């Protein structure tokens, strides 16, 4: 721990100024943090962390010991308040910077883009630092913007005391540089991968929109896009009309694994599954609901009845029906009872007689 006694008179005077300024610094840190968070939220920019700190007295003493003469007054020390934004991707560092420019006044003479300081053959601490001031005035503060991997680099670098007074042998410096280079490469690859995935999603959305469903493989992403077309709404409304039921919205994503278990490979397969089974699914639902006064229905009802009809038409019988419930509801003996109930009701319907041989209650 450094004692204030190690400072000269000027240094001690700066420390005194710091103590008087401390309440203002606390307010400044909170206000800057609030303004930046709000601006990032407004622009839908999600970051891994936004943190702030006020420089401790000990840390300031350490700094003043080394270069106290450089500062005429405490306000010349620009990192008394520090904000740090850690982003997922490299390009988001620039987005955060663009927002910071709008929210704060930037002191361009003091700000530095450490990402551009490297020699062509060196790697390391890649971070963007702005020295800022609130639009309403007050002391300056430092804003650091970096990716999660840049943060990892600088945290480890700090932890290992890489920049201390002991001369580090060249082989260790080389190891550090190799790791830094690797992190930079990974950062770039993550950003590139994100761009590729975004392009892929756009292509899939366009194929779905244009009805070219056979070309779209069935996956969580594509099924989610497909659901935006509300492919089950028509059948749900038809079933709901039986008892003038209200339709309660429920996620259909848990049914994806069920559809995959049927061997459906593309959205085209899912569309065929709907087209080929809708009338029979309606009849099955009707045979159950018409005898009740149930006037609320889950939006998953259509998909559930379609699945049952599909399984029965494929000869899955009672066992196949139980597997549906096991898939969506977890395995349980009670699912056997539901399968029996559905199977008995389905036996009275015409589509079962067309598949009689394969549906004799196996």
């Amino acid at each position, binding site marked *: 721990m450094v004692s204030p006694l190690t400072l000269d008179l000027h240094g001690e005077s700066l420390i005194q100024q710091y103590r008087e300024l401390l309440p203002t610094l606390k307010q400044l840190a909170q206000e800057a943090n609030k303004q930046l968070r709000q601006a990032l939220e407004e622009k839908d920019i999600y970051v891994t962390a936004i943190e702030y700190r006020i420089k401790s007295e000990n840390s300031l003493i350490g700094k003043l010991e080394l270069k106290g003469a450089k500062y005429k007054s405490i306000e010349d020390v620009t990192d008394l308040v520090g904000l740090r934004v850690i982003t997922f991707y490299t390009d988001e560092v620039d987005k955060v910077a663009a927002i910071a420019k709008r929210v704060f006044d930037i002191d361009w003479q003091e700000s530095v883009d450490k990402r551009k300081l490297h020699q062509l053959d060196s790697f390391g601490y890649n971070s963007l630092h702005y020295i800022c001031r609130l639009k309403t005035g007050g002391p300056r503060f430092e804003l650091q913007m970096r990716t999660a991997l840049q943060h990892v680099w600088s945290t480890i670098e700090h932890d290992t005391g890489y920049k201390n007074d002991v001369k580090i042998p060249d082989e260790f410096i080389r190891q550090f540089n190799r790791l830094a280079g690797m992190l930079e490469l990974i950062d770039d690859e993550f950003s590139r991968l994100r761009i590729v995935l975004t392009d892929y999603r756009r292509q899939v959305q366009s194929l779905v929109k244009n009805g070219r469903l056979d070309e779209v493989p069935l996956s969580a992403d594509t099924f989610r896009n497909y659901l935006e077309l509300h492919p089950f709404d028509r059948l749900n409304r038809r079933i709901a009309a039986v008892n003038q*039921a209200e339709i309660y919205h429920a996620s259909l994503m848990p049914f994806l694994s069920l559809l995959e278990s049927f061997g459906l490979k593309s959205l085209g397969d899912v569309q065929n599954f709907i087209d080929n089974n809708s009338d029979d699914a309606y009849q099955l639902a009707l045979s*159950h609901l018409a005898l009740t006064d*149930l006037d609320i229905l889950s*939006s*998953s009802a259509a998909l559930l009845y379609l699945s049952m009809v599909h399984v029965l038409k494929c000869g899955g019988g009672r066992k196949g029906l139980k597997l549906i419930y096991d898939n969506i509801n977890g395995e349980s003996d009670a699912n056997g009872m539901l399968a029996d109930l559905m199977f008995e009701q389905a036996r009275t319907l015409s589509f079962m007689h067309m598949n009689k041989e394969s549906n004799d209650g196996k």
Partner: protein
Amino acid sequence: MNTVLKEENNDLVMYFEGRLDTASALEVEKAVAPLKESSGHDIILDCSKMDYISSAGLRIFLSILKSAKPKGDHVYIKGISDSIRAVFAMTGFVNLFEFK
């Protein structure tokens, strides 16, 4: 319909006895209010002695689920008869709840 609310092993357990239909829905709605206000407890709806559930009853169960989910609490339905389970299956709600 009779309802009893108990706290058991940090779970809130609501016991239902009788018919949960339109006639009893208003009273039950009031009885389940503490379940919706609670946080940090899993909820067990014990239907071992429930004879019947109507759409009004389903709506009450769904409203309990809707308030519990964002808080990260689970809602379990325990001991339902085959005929009540069939109601959940027919209406497509069978995968929304966890059954014990």
